Each structure stands twice: as structure tokens, then as C-alpha cells.
């Protein structure tokens, strides 16, 4: 086996040194009746070339060569090549969690920079080293608000990513945290009247997402006002990090739960991604996850360490703020490099391009289909309602190697034939025109079908 660095002579010499006759002697603690005395039924040992071939085949079966309009919590942005050049360095790739600070300063300093940039972008005072993803970050942020307020119930906007809400429901169920779901108005934003009525003296927090699942930017100030007036916290989830380049961050939030996938992390069929939680300094001791802090060594030299570990499971065990241990460090490094590449000016320009492409696309689509939620600003996603089932339109688009918008009926049956379309800096005008053309064609054929069979309509 090519990963194993021993010759038969080495093994023999080592067994002799240990003082046993055969390797089987070292496995004698395992009761004989349970020992596996056969080969595992897994594929035979493959050559490297065979492994590459096998996965190339899988890659070809997996949408290789398709263009996409999908967003919905996972966004297709350009990834600068230096991200992979740098994260492939063995000293980053193959290092452990930086508990031994003296020989982990590279990882520690880079996390410190990541925390700083997340604070700059979100307008918060502290950010942690990462969480698994946006959905678990949102669930943990809500649990954090429950601990901080000592209250039990949570109001969640229905315009929060449906899978984030499902994860929160799983986490909340055994914590005895009742969840109230607040509907959206015809602007796509959270229904403030309904929210106002739902908040009680036992509401720990309100969870909204902005831009929300429909791409609509929430009126965070108005939601914050309601929350704070009633002594509750405001937790804001951000699934599309690029929006922070041009959309005012939710500065009045108490906790922000973010998904940083858009910052240079490949779509990768849903993971690994990079969640992160940011908040105010006063909340830091209830924050889950690792934190890096600045300090000095014995000679007064600046250095970085993992800090405030008394919040964490390896110290506090069942009294910890969370059970999280391994997080998404290497993915946070990707995001860190991405934020560094684009920086203060680039992120803004990039976000502006996303905005422009989406405005153009929404304009083109509006000539044929019905654009929902136009009454509030949006970032890089919009909802189109068509006469035909979006799955049918998408199926025709797929024939042209184009993946159409995300049909919403799976999560929002009340929206009927609506689908969620996303444009990024990588979505070309010609691709938008082609897709808009298919929507136009669909509307035309539905209309002419109606004209031909009026009795169908009458029924």
C-alpha cells in the first residue's frame, strides 16, 4: 500500500522489539468471537490513475459543462486561483487545530485576520473562527440569544432559508424552544404587523435573513425596533456574503449568523461551506465556537492564541456554550484569502456587478413573466411567476445545458409556479437573454393553448 512507509523487514524488526511473535498478538484484546476473519467487501485497491478516472466519470455525470441560475443559499462566483495555491500548502492543509500556539502562528494569525474582516463587513464587534455552515450558525445564534435573554420562544421569518429553518427546528425541539413562524408580506419582507403581534415577554429573539430567501433585503431597522422595544434580540442570517459589498449590514442586529460560501468556496454539491457568528463584545462569553485573541510572548512579542476556551466543550463539558469542536478552518482560510483579494474596493465593485446583472435579468424576465416582491430592494436573486410549471421550463432549458431557477413550490406551495433566479458576476448577458427567451416562449405557448381550447379554461 503506497501510503504506508514500512518494509516487511521494518515490521519484523518492530515486532521483535515489542516482543511479540506476530501482529495478531497485538489484536488479542479484541474478543475472538467478534474478530473479522475475512476481507472487507470494499472495492479492490486501485492505482492512482484508476481513482482519477473513476472520479472523472462521476464528474461528467454531475452537471459538468452546465451554466446555472441557481442560488438559494449556494452561489456560483468566480474563485481567484491563488485561493487554491495557498490553501494547498501542506502547512495549512495538513495542520491540526492550533492548540499549540508556538507552532501554529500561521493558522492563528490568519483566523485573527478573518475575524477582523468579518467584523468590518458585518459591523459587529467580534466574530468567531467559523461554524459548520450558515444553517447551523443560525441555529446556534438563536440558542445563544436564548441563553443571553433567559427567554424561551423564538420568532422566525418564513422568508429565512427553509433548510436553515429546518435545522433550527431540529436543534430547538429538545431544548424546549417553541418556534413561531412569521409570514411575508407582498413585498417579500417579513410581515411586521404579524411579527409585532407574535412577540411576547418570553420571546428570546427574532430570526430574519437579509437578503432573505427571495433575494429581498429586509427592513432590518424596523424589525430591530420591534425586537428591542420588547426586550428580545435580533438575529440576522446572511446567506449571500457578497451582498455585504453593497448592502448596508444589519448593524442593529444583536447576533449575525453568516454563510461565507460566496467568499471563494466552491459550490461542491453543498459543502464544505463556512458558517460564522458575529456579535457585540458584551455577548462574547455566550458565543459558541473557537476564538483567536492577540497576546504577547515572554519577550513581549505579538502572538495569537485560541482564547476564552472556558466557553468550550473540552473545558466545560456539559456546561459548554455548544458541543462544537472541529469547525471549518480551511474553508475560513479560503474566505479570508478571498476577502483579502477583493478588499475594500473590489468587494463593492463585485457586488455592484451582481446587482446590475440581476436588475437586467429581472427586467428581461418581467417582459414575459410576473416578477414577485418588486416593492422592496433586492440583491442578486428575484422571483418569477410563470404560467407554466417551472419544472417544465427548466427541463427544456436543461436540454441547452442551462440550469434554470429554483422552483419554489417545494418550500412555498402558496407561490404556485414561482421560481427563484440568481445572477452573479459570472452570468453573461447572452445566458440571461437565452433563459428569458425560453420563459417568453413558454408564456406564448400557454397563451396560444388557452386560445385554442377555451373550454379548458372555462372548466
Amino acid at each position, binding site marked *: *500500500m503506497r*501510503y*504506508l512507509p514500512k518494509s516487511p523487514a*521494518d515490521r519484523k524488526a518492530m515486532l521483535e522489539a*515489542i516482543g511479540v511473535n506476530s501482529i495478531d498478538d*497485538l*489484536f*488479542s484484546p*479484541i474478543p475472538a468471537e*467478534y474478530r473479522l476473519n475475512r476481507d472487507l467487501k*470494499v472495492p479492490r485497491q486501485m492505482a492512482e490513475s484508476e481513482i482519477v478516472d473513476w*472520479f472523472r466519470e*462521476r*464528474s461528467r455525470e454531475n*452537471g*459538468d459543462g452546465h451554466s446555472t441560475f441557481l442560488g438559494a*443559499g449556494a452561489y*456560483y462566483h468566480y474563485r*481567484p486561483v491563488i485561493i487554491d495555491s495557498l490553501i494547498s500548502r*501542506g*502547512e495549512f492543509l*495538513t495542520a491540526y487545530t492550533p492548540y499549540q500556539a*508556538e*507552532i*501554529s*502562528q*500561521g*493558522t492563528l494569525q490568519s483566523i485573527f*485576520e478573518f475575524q477582523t474582516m468579518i467584523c468590518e*463587513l458585518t459591523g459587529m464587534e467580534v466574530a468567531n*473562527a467559523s461554524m459548520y*455552515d450558515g444553517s*447551523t450558525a443560525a441555529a446556534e445564534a438563536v440558542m445563544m440569544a436564548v441563553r443571553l435573554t433567559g427567554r424561551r420562544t423564538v420568532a422566525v421569518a418564513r422568508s429565512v432559508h427553509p433548510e436553515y429553518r429546518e435545522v433550527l427546528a431540529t*436543534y430547538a*425541539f429538545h*431544548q424546549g424552544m417553541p418556534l413561531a413562524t412569521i409570514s411575508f408580506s407582498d413585498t417579500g419582507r417579513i410581515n411586521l404587523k404579524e411579527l409585532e403581534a407574535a412577540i411576547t415577554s418570553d420571546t428570546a429573539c427574532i430570526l430574519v435573513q437579509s437578503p432573505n430567501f427571495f433575494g429581498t433585503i429586509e427592513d432590518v431597522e424596523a424589525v430591530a425596533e420591534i425586537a428591542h422595544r420588547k426586550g428580545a434580540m435580533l438575529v440576522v442570517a446572511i446567506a449571500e456574503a457578497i451582498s455585504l*459589498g453593497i448592502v*448596508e449590514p444589519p448593524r442593529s442586529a444583536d447576533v449575525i449568523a453568516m454563510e461565507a460560501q460566496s467568499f471563494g468556496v*466552491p*459550490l*461542491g*454539491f453543498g459543502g464544505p461551506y463556512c458558517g460564522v457568528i458575529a456579535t457585540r463584545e458584551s455577548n462574547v462569553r455566550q458565543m459558541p465556537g473557537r*476564538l483567536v485573541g492577540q497576546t504577547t*510572548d515572554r519577550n513581549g512579542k505579538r*502572538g495569537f492564541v485560541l482564547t476564552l476556551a472556558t466557553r468550550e466543550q473540552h473545558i466545560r463539558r456539559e456546561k*459548554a456554550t455548544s*458541543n*462544537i469542536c*472541529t469547525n*471549518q*478552518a480551511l*474553508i475560513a482560510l479560503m474566505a479570508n484569502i478571498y476577502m*483579502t*483579494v477583493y*478588499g475594500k474596493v473590489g468587494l463593492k465593485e463585485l457586488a455592484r456587478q451582481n446587482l*446590475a446583472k440581476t*436588475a437586467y435579468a429581472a427586467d428581461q424576465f418581467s417582459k414575459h413573466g410576473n416578477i414577485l416582491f418588486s416593492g422592496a430592494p433586492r440583491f442578486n436573486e428575484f422571483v418569477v411567476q410563470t404560467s407554466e410549471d417551472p419544472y417544465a421550463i427548466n427541463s427544456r432549458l436543461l436540454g441547452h445545458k442551462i440550469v434554470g431557477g*429554483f422552483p419554489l413550490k417545494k418550500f412555498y406551495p402558496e407561490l404556485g409556479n414561482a421560481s427563484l433566479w440568481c445572477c452573479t*458576476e459570472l452570468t453573461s*448577458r447572452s445566458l440571461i437573454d437565452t433563459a428569458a427567451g425560453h420563459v417568453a416562449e413558454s408564456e406564448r405557448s400557454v397563451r396560444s393553448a388557452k386560445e385554442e381550447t377555451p373550454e379548458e379554461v372555462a372548466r
Partner: protein
Amino acid sequence: MKHFTRKATRHVSQNEGLIFEKSSSGKAAWRLAPLDVPEVDTEKLLGLSERKDLGNMPEVSEIEIIRHFTRLSTWNYAIDLGMYPLGSCTMKYNPRVNEVVSRLEGIANGHPYQPEKISQGAMRIIKTLSDCLLEITGMEAITLQPAAGAHGELTGLLLIRAHHDSKGAPRKKVLIPDSAHGTNPATAAMVGYAVENLKSNASGMVDVAALEAQMNEDVAALMLTNPNTLGVFEQEIHKIADILHAKGGLLYMDGANMNALVSKVRPGDFGVDVMHLNLHKTFSTPHGGGGPGSGPVAVKKQLEPFLPRPVLISKSDGTLGFDYDRPQSIGRVRSFYGNFGMFVRALAYILANGPDGLRQTTEDAVLNANYIRKGLEGVYDLPYSSASMHEVVFSDKLQAKKGARTMDIAKRLIDYGFHPYTTAFPLIVPGALMIEPTESEPKEELDLFIEAMRAIAQEVEEDAEVVRTAPHSTRVSRLDETAAARKPVLRWKPAEPKREA
């Protein structure tokens, strides 16, 4: 240094400040393609939601970024540089072909919501890995959704909870041995279970009599690590499982130490009902400075209905698909399908090994741990003499008499060119030195490690101060962690407050 170390030599290390300290207005590492649609009036589109300023985000050039992160990287220790003897962490070689295949176009850029018709490749990877892991564990159903080991524990306990609830008899407690990882009790608390401590016996194993006494109808499960954190196989595992099952409890196995067992024994065969695996330990996915991990949870048939949504299924037409119609499911624990990129790497590792490679891997891991044990026995105190599997736990009892504790010895190991072992864990061993070499170390590296550990033991005898103040060869000496926690500085701020223009 009194004892010359053969493994490492000091060399020049570049200084490097924070990226913000290199930033100046007008530098850039990016260029966007020309916009092919009309420019927009952002103020008109966004109104009050428009952001004007991105604060102190850096402005630097590409070469500066390359140098910045390359310099930082050289301040890290890594598997690629040498042995990483962290007990219970299984820091093994991370094969590079895994990185290559995970970056193939369709695999790296597949969208989680793309139609199933063009997702067959990804689903085939999930299916093949699932089948392999089920065969390796001897379990009957699996979810790959959990993002790390602790997340797997959470999922596993939620499944156990759902199982008891479905029987109309929710239970209150989870038993956890005193040698367990901190994640175990933290997880039980998250699922709303009370934690009851289970004492270890004189051999460092579960005290079966105590278990029998503590087991009752209020106990939902026992969370057991096997081999346990002493590296000792729980020999009475069948009795343990029987005691739990007799009273309707379930046996949860923390699979952190699965590297000792693969192809030798299967948890499903010795009575485990639920377990998690750590793909970033046993199955070679890179630790990346703290993640990403992946924590698949494998279960027996009776727990299958409760698995997180969605579940991968084979359809009648031979294609694969996701089944969301799972009325008894505990729900989702993460968005989409988990850390898919880690599945790709773990499967590539299994394919590179095959059945023979996996067996040899386990044998070498156990061989290496026992070789170190033999080499250091007598020099360091061995608190439990039970046979070691893939790791060995010593204590600092002999060295502490001279004032050198496990953390001091660990820090001194850095000067000898090694990463420290795990210190002060498991908690049942005061001053523990927990050493797991994995199969990835050649005999030469093990000999250097043993030599270094022996040399340090001798230094403790001759001049303990040099050990107590180690490391002496790193960029920074021991850092003031107390100050870091007392007055936390968790982000950079510009030296001068920015003045309004």
C-alpha cells in the same frame, strides 16, 4: 541545547505583519470583466439599504497576498513536515490525489439544488462511500449529513431520543465514562439529556458492575469510545451491550478511535446501535488547521426511520435520488447534504487502500503505538498496563517530581522538531501524555521520536528548567494565555481612530 536533535535545525523565518498593516489605498489584487449589461444606479435600486463604506478592509496586491500567506504558512507545523502524535486525533497522511479529484469540474462546481438527472455523479459518490462505511462498521443504515464528529454525536443522540420517544417512553439520562471526550457530555446537554458519570475500573475500562448498578429505565444510552481514550479495547463490550439492551437502552459508540479497528472488528458485530465516524481522522481527509471535518452516523435498522432528511435511495429505474418523505425523521441537522467534498476525499482514500490496504493500515497503526510504548516504558510512567491498540497514554508522574509537567515536556518536544502529543487528557490520568502515531510514520521517524522523548526525560533529571521554559527555538516563546482571556483582543483595529474627512 544539551542534547543535539537529529530531526530539526533552526532556519531563517520571515517576519510578517497583519495584512491590514500592508494595506494602502489604490492597491488591488482583482480585476473584473467588463460589465455586459447596463450600469445601474445603486442608490435608486437600494435606497437606504445601500452601503457606502467597507471600513478597514484591506487593499493589497497579489504578490503581497501570496507572500503574506506563504510566510504565515511557514510558521505552522504540519503532517507534511513530520509526525503529529496527537492522541485521539489520528493525524495521518492526507493523500494528494484526494485533493485533485475533489477539484474536478463537475464535483467542485455541482450545485446542491441542480436537478437529480445531472447529479448522478455526486449521488453515486455518496452511495459508494455509504456502502463502504456500512461494510466497515457492520451497521445497517447511514447518514453523511453531520459536518463533524461532535455534530455526528448530536445527530446520534437525536436519533436515540427519537427512538425512545417513538416507544412512548422518553428517557432522561445518558451515561458517559469519565474517560470520554468533552464533546460527549456537551452533546448530551444539547439534546436535553442529563449526564451521569460512569467510573472506569482499575484497568481503565468500563466498570461493568458499576454500569449494571447505574443502568435503569431512565437511561437512554451509554456513549462509549472504543478503543477508549486510553487506547484500550473494551474487552467486556458484549456484556456492556447486553446490560444496556436488557433495560431498553442503546449503545452509542464514539468512532474517534476507529483507526484501531478497521477491517479487524466491526462495531455493528459487537452490539453498537449508533455510532459516528470522523472522516477527518480515520479516512484521511485533511484537518486543515481545525476543519472541515465530516461525521457520518451509522445505525442499526431500528433507527433508520429517524435518520435526517433527505435519505439517498436507489430508484426502480436504476438512478439515485433523495427521499424527503421521511415522516419519522429527526429533521435536518445541516443544510444540503453535508460536507460533500470530504466524502469525495474519504472515498478516494478507501479506493486507494482496498481491503488489503485498510487491514495493513490498521495493523501498522497499532504496531506503531506499541513500538513507542515499548520504547518509552520505564522512562515515563504507564498508569494503566492494559494492552494498547492505536495509542498509548503515559503520565508525567516521574518528571513532575522534578517540576516538569506534561505541558512542559510537550513544549520541549517542539524544540526537537515534533508536534506535541495530546496533554492532560484523558482526565482520568493526571498529567497525561497521550500519544497516537498513526500508520503514517516510518520506523525512522518513530525512532527519532523515542530518542527525543528519552532525551527530554534526561533533561528533566539534569536541568528541568530548560524543559519548563520550552520551547526555545520557535518564533514566539510561550504566549500569555491568561492575559489573552482576561482582556480579549479579538480583532485588529487601526492605531489611530479614523477621522471624518
